[in-house]
């Protein structure tokens, strides 16, 4: 961000979308969709020791309508899949999804009738965090990766739409997949 602090005048020049992306990336309200053992590690991340709040993703919102970031933590089975999809659809744009742990990313060691082999079969996922369960450092790294993605996203001249006018309709649909 081209921040300049001229000595006498008190105004800052920047591109609007960069400011918006910057504010979005440091105010990620997360919705924890915790289903299995990875939840313990999730609690560790947001406990005082690792303190995920340092990265601006401070408050868990237990209503998807108030959340920006969907944390899918743990095994998702086919019986749970419609619920997860519904939670995702209830979230307001812009929204991001993190698959937390091996089970959410790929089904983990489950290969059977009941487990969804990776939540990206149901939702678009922005960041996959590997590990069974992932270390808190890995989770923090995942959050930082997501923040980079958000900052680098070209959200168009208005900054609000999230639509890049230079994209064709096909590219847009592809990126929304």
């Amino acid at each position, binding site marked *: 961000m081209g921040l300049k602090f001229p000595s006498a005048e008190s105004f800052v020049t920047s591109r609007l979308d960069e400011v918006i992306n910057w504010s979005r990336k440091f105010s990620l309200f997360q919705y924890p969709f915790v289903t299995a053992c990875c939840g313990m590690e999730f609690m560790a991340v947001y406990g005082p020791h690792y303190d995920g709040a340092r990265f601006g993703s401070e408050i868990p919102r237990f209503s998807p309508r108030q959340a920006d970031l969907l944390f899918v933590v743990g095994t998702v089975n*086919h019986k749970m899949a419609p619920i997860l999809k519904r939670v995702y659809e209830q979230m307001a744009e812009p929204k991001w999804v993190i698959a937390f742990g091996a089970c959410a990313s790929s089904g983990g060691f489950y290969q059977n*009738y009941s487990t969804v082999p990776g939540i990206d*079969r149901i939702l678009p996922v922005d960041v996959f965090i590997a590990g069974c369960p992932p270390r808190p450092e890995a989770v923090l790294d995942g959050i930082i990766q997501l923040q980079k993605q958000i900052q680098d996203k070209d959200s168009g001249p208005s900054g609000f739409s999230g639509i890049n006018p230079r994209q064709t309709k096909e590219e847009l649909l592809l990126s929304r997949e």
Partner: protein
Amino acid sequence: MPPLTALIKKDFPKLYLDSHAQHGDETVSIKRAGMLELFLFLKDDPRCKFDMMIDLTAVDYLPRSPRFEMVYHFKSSPLHHRLRVKIPLEESACQVDSIEPLWVAADWYERECWEMYGIDFQGHPNLKFLLRYEGFQGHPLRKDYDKLLMQPLVPMRPVAERHDYGEVFQYVQEPPPSVPEQEPS
């Protein structure tokens, strides 16, 4: 012969099939017809007093005949002994009497067993889906249920570009041919 086995063999000679004992725990195999009489005896007789149903499940011994075997575990808290009861079942007649009227704890175990193995528990008051969902076809813990066969409730997005090995899972809504669906009776 261990005491409980001897008791059952003497009182229920028509039901008795087989037995063995290991480390002081006895196992008795019995026939299906008239099994409730024996279970009532196990629960109420002062020499048995099995007041606790610990576990109940089935085993699929494909391709053996009889294919299935019901396994019941009982414990007596006043007398501190245990007993395992097995009931072999043919595939063509995989049904047993529900023991839910005797041990309430058997309720959910029987529902699970019905879902996973397709064994019909006659007289069960509430044989409904517990772990499976509506529309699930087949019985997933049977040996002939394909482990890659999934029955998703939401449409699955294609993610083949992520996998070098291509799509290994099958999403089939039809039941596999050898597994007939059983509706609650």
